[in-house]
């Protein structure tokens, strides 16, 4: 029931995630932030097993920070993506992390980028991607309306269309969504899309 999707626009990358924390039929909370800010210019939207998600994302965040302290330069988005893939791949045959990751980042030299990382450590650089049951709707909406170099307004409008589609067509649709954006000014929360207050 978790939905995470993302897309790359002109000079920015966008990640949208639902914010429900669910246990069987019970919604524990509906303002869970599943998009972690890795560093000043990286966002990581994660979906999957709740404990693994929290553990793995924090582990990656601290290691990215450690690299920065040791080497005095931040990791590029591609390097961070490959680091994550390596960790997932190493754990895969011992104690797999059941977490799907959408990594969005902005680098000075290469601009915005989005990486799809599966829970079995498949890594691919993409323009648009989605995880979860919501992906069936979000991907189709994006296939129809996405084009390269969209402006922020166009991308937010497309994200809203995807959220609308998920809300109307998914039987157990999440209540609230969070949208985060990363561009040359940094990674930050953009807005929420709420149907329930928490």
């Amino acid at each position, binding site marked *: 029931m978790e939905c995470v999707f993302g897309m790359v626009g002109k000079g920015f990358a966008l990640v949208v995630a639902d914010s429900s924390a669910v246990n069987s039929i019970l919604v524990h909370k509906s303002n869970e932030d599943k998009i972690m800010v890795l560093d000043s210019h990286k966002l990581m939207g994660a979906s999957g097993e709740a404990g693994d998600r929290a553990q793995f994302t924090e582990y990656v965040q601290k290691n990215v920070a450690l690299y920065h302290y040791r080497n005095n330069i931040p990791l590029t988005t591609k390097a961070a993506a490959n680091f994550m893939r390596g960790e997932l791949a190493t754990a*895969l045959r011992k104690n797999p992390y059941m977490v799907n990751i959408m990594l969005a980042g902005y680098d000075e030299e290469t601009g915005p980028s989005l990486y799809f990382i*599966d829970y*079995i*450590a498949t890594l*691919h650089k*993409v323009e648009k*991607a989605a995880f979860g049951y919501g992906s069936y709707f979000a991907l189709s909406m994006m296939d129809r309306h996405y084009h390269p170099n969209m402006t922020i307004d166009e991308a937010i409008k497309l994200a809203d269309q995807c959220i609308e589609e998920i809300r109307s067509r998914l039987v157990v649709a999440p209540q609230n969504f969070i949208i985060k954006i990363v561009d040359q000014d940094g990674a930050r929360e953009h807005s929420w899309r709420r149907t329930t207050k928490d």
Partner: protein
Amino acid sequence: MSIFEYNGSALVAMVGKNCLAIASDRRLGVQLQTVATDFQRIFMIHDKLFLALSALASDAQTLHQRLVFRHKLYHLREERDMKPETFASLVSAMLYEKRFGPYFCQPVIAGLGDDDKPFICTMESIGAKELAKDFVVAGTASESLYGACESMFKPDMEAEELFETISQALLSSVDRDCLSGWGGYVYIVTPTEVTERILKGRMD
């Protein structure tokens, strides 16, 4: 669904007259859903040796990284590139190391060996080599590929004709397989140059 069919793939390599061709499809899927239509499965190890890895994309990426590492070390120690036959033995040994917890990949290796003699081989996921003089196939579309290649292949084709043949064989085979397709990458390797071409097929 088998783990070998999780991501979907189609690979083929063919031998021509002093040249060879290696081709793959471009789809990356997660079972029934297509995630990307520009996924690379063919990797260049050196300018006369290509490795393509089918089946599970994650293991294909892991294996590729490990093999590039081993080849770079070899190059540093031996001060030359690996011959395709040697590389095939290396891949086979690495796969058999994991005999009881294997990599879910079927590699296709294509290269020009001594005197630029074309060499192709494939192996299954635990490293049993299959050498061939004409063509090798791998992936979810392998059965269709066997049929298409068997009927379209002629020995001693020149580079241009080889390109046409391998492209037609690949596209017609992936059209019958829902898990592979969305175009193709074709590499033509001759003693003097490597040409990469992207095919547009049925995008579905």
